[in-house]
């Protein structure tokens, strides 16, 4: 039997978007309104963050981190937990470049306004540069290598408080140091009277209502039971806010039949396709202690790519390297001597890359690697290889090379050794964590899904507040931009609240 509930505002998702909106609506709650957040994932106890990849990845990521694009050539990382993907990011905090926001060309979206809002959350989340003594060799060597190769590395501001340098950010911080929405905005929202229900998956959206299925933990599964009893609920709300991520929000709207009225729904999906490069040094380096992602090299504007320091775990590293057999094993046995760099292409929106649902309601993300993206990744791989050698590495494992292991004395032949013809989808392990678009902002329904305040065209009671709003790539780590946009969405909700409540009252 379907149970019924009523709220003034219902937020779907609790990540950077949903968590921000939830906190920003506290004044509305204090004025007597009711606000509910429904989150598909569970709420984890602090002691459940073990840092073990096979223990944490299935608990924290959609499909255990193995969600594949429709043709199976790229994995997409999406956090599913109280706090969404902010539980599993590294906390790198950058504001969107002005040229990107201008290129978006969204009428009513002012760059200065977005930056001011992003900066508010920078301060709230304790964003700062880590001191020198907390930077490990994996990161220092990147800076040295960039310098030797003629590049200038920049330090990532990160949103940590009391970071012990576990290096386990992507598996959920075991020390609760990372200031994601699970640590900052959501607890404040709850203290301010916002209700949060976990293990609550939205099945579909109806006119000013959603149908939610609340599940229960399987035996031995991590996470607390839901705050609500298991079962199906129909929750009416004057305002519904979708913040389930680019894939989640788009597919939910498509599954609910909004596609017929919104021709751009699901279109404009993009991401930052990424793979890992490994440089092997002759000596051990500190790589598995310290914040893993402290520096980056931004060539997005000039060359369409960004390099970031990174450090992954044995299984993720093994599957990210190309090939197998003795040479792969030899590299894995050198784990303590490995330096890692993540290559990201800052892909622009391309026709055909989109989110769809099939007749059974299953989500599919269609993504094709365009020649320009492949060239960007190849170009970035050559740059990263020079950086590794500049830092003193003896050899480099480069996915778009065959064989992938490049010795130091081959440095003059990098243009031939690393080449687009070796970038074979299905052979090279590509993944993406920055998923964007699908409900892009814009002027009207013929060109976009929402306006500059996240209001879905033709449905003033329905808003979107996550990275699906991006009309094109943000070309940096996106969470501060999501929070800035979500803050605008919350302001719009507060401004429109009386009108929406009156509309719901008339319908009831």
């Amino acid at each position, binding site marked *: 039997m379907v149970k019924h509930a009523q709220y003034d505002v219902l937020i779907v998702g609790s990540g950077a978007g949903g968590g921000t909106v939830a906190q920003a609506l506290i004044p509305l709650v204090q004025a007597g309104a009711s606000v509910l957040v429904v989150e598909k994932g569970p709420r984890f106890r602090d002691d459940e*963050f073990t*840092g*073990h*990849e*096979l223990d944490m990845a*299935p608990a924290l990521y959609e*499909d*255990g981190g*193995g969600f594949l694009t429709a*043709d*199976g*050539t790229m994995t997409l990382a999406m956090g599913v937990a109280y706090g969404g993907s902010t539980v599993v990011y590294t906390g790198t905090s950058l504001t969107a470049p002005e040229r990107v926001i201008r290129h978006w060309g969204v009428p009513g979206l002012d760059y200065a306004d977005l930056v001011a809002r992003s900066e508010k959350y920078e301060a709230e989340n304790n964003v700062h540069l880590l001191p020198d003594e*907390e930077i490990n060799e994996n990161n220092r060597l990147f800076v040295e290598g960039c310098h030797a190769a003629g590049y200038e590395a920049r330090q990532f501001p990160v949103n940590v408080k009391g*970071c*012990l*340098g*576990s*290096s*386990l950010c992507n598996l959920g911080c*075991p*020390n609760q140091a990372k200031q994601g929405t699970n640590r900052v905005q959501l607890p404040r929202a709850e203290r301010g009277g916002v209700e949060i229900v976990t293990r609550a998956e939205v099945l579909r959206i109806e006119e000013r209502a959603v149908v939610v299925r609340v599940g229960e933990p399987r035996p031995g599964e991590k996470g607390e039971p839901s705050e609500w009893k298991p079962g199906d609920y129909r929750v009416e709300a004057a305002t519904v806010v979708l913040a389930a991520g680019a894939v989640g929000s788009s597919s939910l709207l498509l599954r609910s039949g909004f596609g017929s009225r919104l021709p751009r729904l699901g279109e404009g999906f993009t991401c930052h396709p990424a793979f890992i490069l490994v440089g092997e040094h002759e000596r*051990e380096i*500190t790589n*598995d*202690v*310290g914040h893993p992602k402290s520096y980056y090299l931004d060539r997005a504007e000039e060359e369409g790519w960004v390099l970031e320091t990174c450090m992954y*775990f*044995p*299984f993720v*590293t*093994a*599957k990210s390297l190309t*090939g*197998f*057999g*003795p040479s792969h*094993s030899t590299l*894995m*046995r050198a*784990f*303590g001597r490995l330096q890692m760099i993540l290559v990201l292409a800052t892909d622009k929106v391309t026709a055909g890359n989109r989110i769809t649902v099939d007749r059974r309601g299953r989500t599919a993300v269609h993504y094709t690697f365009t020649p320009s993206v492949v060239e960007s990744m190849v170009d970035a791989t050559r740059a990263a290889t020079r950086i590794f050698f500049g830092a003193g590495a003896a050899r480099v494992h480069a996915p778009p090379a*065959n064989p992938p292991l490049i010795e130091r004395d081959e440095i003059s032949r990098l243009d031939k050794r690393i080449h687009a013809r070796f970038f*074979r*989808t*299905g*052979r090279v*392990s590509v993944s993406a964590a920055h998923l964007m678009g699908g409900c892009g902002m814009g002027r009207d329904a013929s060109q976009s899904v929402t306006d500059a305040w996240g209001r879905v065209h033709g449905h003033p009671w329905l808003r979107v507040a996550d990275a699906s709003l991006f009309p094109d790539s943000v070309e940096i780590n996106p969470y501060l931009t999501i929070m800035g946009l979500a803050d605008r969405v919350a302001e719009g909700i507060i401004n429109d609240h009386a009108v929406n409540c009156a509309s719901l009252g008339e319908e009831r």
Partner: protein
Amino acid sequence: MAATIVPELSGVDEEVWRRTEALITQGLSGRPDAMVRQLVLFIRVVNVLAVVRFLRPFTALDDARRLRFLSSLENAPILAIRRGVWGLRTLVFMGYYGQDDVRARLGYRAKSLGWRAVRQEGADW
């Protein structure tokens, strides 16, 4: 096939195999049935392709030929075959590198206490 992907598996005892299989089974448990069926089918296809090429099944090939053959499939012109190799190797890597003692042997030392653990354990790092 697993020992071709991770050569260390050819010399391990029954307990390590059991743990490897258990982690692979656990990894597959949450996946759609269709994916598991595709994997089983792919393993059969590999055997058939080996017969076509060498007149004997994959399991009857020596180590060097197994490696060359699987590597050629990893670079096959057909995406489905490359994906199949990718899926197979991912599972084997999960089963092997997911084991605590294997991670320790690699020298992977990440601990929740991070720098504090380094300072406490000193020379061990």
